[in-house]
């Protein structure tokens, strides 16, 4: 049977639907005084499915009827608007017969058209930004850096001189703020259009603009001082009444929650005059024009939230000692897990041989590893701040700076440095959590040790036997002979251990979880973790030695002190 007849037949089996005509291969039908078309290209392909359209010769604003022309691959292609009836990937087209597919789109259309006003509002709000952007005139979205506090504020405005505007919340420092472009500062202040961030608490009756219904002063006033409902908090309202405006334009950056998602939409308001008054008064009495502006919220906090990162990491500061392979992998994943402030110490430069197990790229070769890391990580997002210190961190300095951080992570491979830092930590009575992590030679096993002065045991316990005598690291799993086999010697004392990136990835994966547990207060003792290729093993605190020369004296001294007091 002809494709058109096939569709026609199905359509005519519905009550209340009447076939009207066929045009461009589209089967048109009438339902409730409105004409819709069913277009079924490539009907013989399993993966194709029919589409419903409306002719684009009139305004028809309804949720999910796309507000713009869709170029169908047929003649007169720009005259149709598509109706979106499916969420992406919500159905497997392959499983349905041709007939089922047509029936399914018609059924869905009938459900869509029978939505109550409230249901329509909900569907409109789900696609709010979509409609909003469609009515906007700017091509480059305005960048919004709103931050973690959801409260009214005047944002700082920057312009790159070309097309990009940035609205930045107070307290957010962008690493590229002072960036230069051909000798000139890239970002400059733009005070002519101040921006205000306005969180919405109650979304009821807030609908996006459509071609039928453009936004006017009333739509803005409904949000800020609607009679029927309080849509913004009283605090926000009061601040709108305090804020003095001297310009003829302002941008209002609204944020509302729809199904738990944060919806940001920006409107630029032009007032009739530039007469100084409060923002609230100007909005109430002086709006001349409401311009719809495309904007995107892209602050680090928001991006972390969007992907499900734990936002409690947002303000944590990490001291990272070592920017070798393990250090670089650690830094990169800390950043992606939601930590934006890292200070990293390392004296080495990046060399070609490092590249395959370092996160930095070839063009960083020759630079110091910390600078390379800073360059690489800050490029990811301007809120990321890496303080790069191109030297080894000495024990005394370690003790001096540690209080500024929430945690130190030591990724250096040398046992002597680890022991030195550990001793400083124990003697300095610093109660910040510290993580030691190292790879065993052999490239298979690695370890994580958490050390917090509040609990028993320290890194040096690993080098101590039951009688308090010094021994080599007792928790390493590989025998000395095996270790030797895995060393590559290149003369004059230089050795290199052979290992690949798998051990780096699994060590860092375990490290992220352990860090999170420490910050969540879930680890109540110093713990050793062994990481073998297929497992992370919690070894508890059996590693501690009561006769450890570093921590046992310290421990008894503290006990004594407690008794005395």
């Amino acid at each position: 049977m002809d494709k058109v007849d096939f569709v026609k037949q199905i359509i005519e089996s519905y009550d209340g639907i009447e076939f009207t005509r066929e045009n461009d291969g589209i089967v048109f039908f009438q339902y409730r005084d409105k004409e819709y078309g069913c277009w079924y290209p490539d009907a013989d392909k399993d993966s194709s499915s029919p589409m419903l359209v409306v002719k684009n010769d009139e305004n028809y604003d309804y949720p999910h009827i796309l507000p713009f022309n869709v170029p169908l691959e047929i003649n007169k292609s720009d005259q149709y608007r598509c109706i979106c009836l499916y969420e992406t990937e919500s159905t497997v087209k392959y499983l349905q017969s041709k007939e089922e597919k047509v029936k399914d789109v018609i059924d869905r259309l009938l459900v869509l058209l029978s939505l109550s006003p409230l249901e329509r509002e909900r569907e409109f709000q789900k696609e709010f930004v979509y409609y909003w952007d469609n009515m906007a005139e700017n091509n480059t979205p305005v960048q919004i850096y709103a931050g973690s506090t959801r409260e009214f504020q005047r944002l700082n405005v920057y312009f790159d001189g070309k097309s990009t505007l940035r609205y930045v919340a107070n307290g957010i420092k962008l690493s590229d703020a002072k960036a230069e472009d051909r000798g000139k500062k890239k970002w400059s202040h733009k005070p002519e259009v101040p921006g205000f961030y306005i969180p919405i608490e109650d979304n009821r009756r807030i609908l996006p603009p459509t071609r039928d219904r453009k936004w006017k002063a009333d739509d803005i006033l409904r949000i800020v001082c609607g009679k029927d409902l309080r849509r913004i908090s009283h605090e926000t309202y009061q601040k709108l009444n305090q804020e003095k405006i001297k310009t003829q334009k302002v941008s209002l950056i609204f944020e509302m929650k729809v199904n738990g998602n944060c919806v940001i939409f920006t409107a630029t308001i032009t007032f009739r005059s530039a007469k100084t008054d409060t923002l609230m008064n100007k909005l109430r009495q002086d709006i001349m024009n409401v311009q719809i502006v495309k904007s995107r919220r892209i602050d680090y906090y928001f991006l972390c939230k969007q992907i499900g990162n734990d936002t409690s990491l947002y303000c944590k500061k990490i001291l990272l000692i070592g920017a070798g392979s393990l250090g670089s992998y650690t830094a990169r994943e800390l950043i992606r897990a939601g930590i934006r402030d890292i200070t990293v110490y390392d004296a080495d430069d990046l060399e070609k041989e490092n590249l395959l197990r370092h996160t930095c790229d070839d063009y960083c070769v020759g630079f110091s590893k910390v600078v390379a890391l800073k360059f690489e990580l800050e490029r990811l997002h301007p809120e990321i701040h890496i303080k790069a210190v191109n030297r080894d961190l000495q024990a005394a300095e370690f003790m001096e700076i540690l209080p500024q951080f929430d945690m130190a992570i030591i990724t250096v491979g040398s046992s002597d440095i680890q022991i030195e830092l550990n001793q400083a930590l124990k003697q300095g009575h610093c109660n910040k959590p510290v993580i030691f992590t190292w790879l065993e030679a052999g490239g298979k096993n690695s370890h994580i040790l958490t050390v917090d002065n509040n609990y028993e045991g320290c890194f040096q316990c690993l080098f101590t036997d039951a009688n308090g005598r010094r021994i080599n690291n007792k928790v390493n799993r590989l025998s000395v002979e095996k270790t030797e086999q895995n060393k590559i010697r290149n003369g004059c004392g230089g050795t290199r251990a052979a290992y690949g990136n798998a051990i780096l990835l699994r060590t860092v994966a375990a490290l992220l979880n352990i860090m999170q547990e420490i910050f969540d207060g879930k680890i109540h003792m110093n713990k050793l973790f062994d990481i073998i290729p297929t497992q992370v093993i919690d070894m508890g605190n059996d590693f501690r030695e009561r006769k450890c020369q570093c921590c046992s004296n310290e421990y008894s001294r503290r006990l004594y002190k407690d008794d005395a007091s």
Partner: protein
Amino acid sequence: MKLKKQFAEFYDEITIKDESEPLREKREILQKDIEDRFPDELASHGIDLKKSDIEIFDQGSYKYNTTIKSNVIDRDVAVKIPLDINQYPDTRKIKGYLRDAIDYVAARTVNIKEPCVNVAYFENGEEWMHIDLPLYAECDGKVYLARGREFADNYSWEIADPKGLNQDLCDKINGNAQLRRIIRYIKKWRNEKYANSTLDHEVPPSIGLTYLACDYFQEVTTPEGDDDLTALQQTMSAIRDSFILTKENGIIVKADITRYIPVEPFTDIFATMKESSDSYGVKFYNRLSKAVENLTNAVNVESEHDAGNYVQKVFGEEFEVPPKQVSSAATVSKKEQNFG
């Protein structure tokens, strides 16, 4: 549990949490006007009142947080002054003075009603809000409400305890989230079913419904959370069962519900309704029975879609009916109503 999501969304839709800013502003200006101008007005009639002796406080649903959305915002604010009611027994006059003190701006329309002074606000010819000002006199340690219309023969200072009433309701409702929701649902049902009512005293008063809901509240929770549908069905059904019916030839000719106010004057909240017409009680009973019937059906039917349809009959279109589920397992997934 059925319709959990629908009840939650419906509740969010009908609830008013706070005063809107225009309402708050208008109310604050009005309160200030009362403080600034009422003493002068009284003084011109030889009554001495210090500004600092006027006490203004919240009353009604905004006080105990059971307000629901309605076409016209309705706010109750009590005004209390010290006054010797024996010296000034004519409540109509005192209410008139309050009216005269505040009736000087075009934005307000002030009228004297039986239990209060009513201040209405209009925009484009339509009333969008009114603030009711019940006027109380404090005399010899007791509080009296000024009753009576402007030109009525019946007027009196009726003993009252507005703060005691507030306290009693707050004690009952605060800390009981499901009860608070049930009260709002029942008020919404009342608004829906009495939307076209124009007769005085026909509509069951909010305070009465609130007390009935408190008295007959049946808490229903399940491991999945509160079951508002069943709680509402049981509560409304218990309220219905508390009516005293009089039948003639099997037909209900009288349906009386009684709830005494637990503070002064300890009167029956539904007394005026009863005195006005027997048919009002019957109508109340019948409408309530219909609601109970629909809710019972909703509780008993298996499909959520059908249950939703029954509940929608109680509340109107704002209550959403969940989509029909297709039983065949193969087609279930593709019938989910999530549009793209």
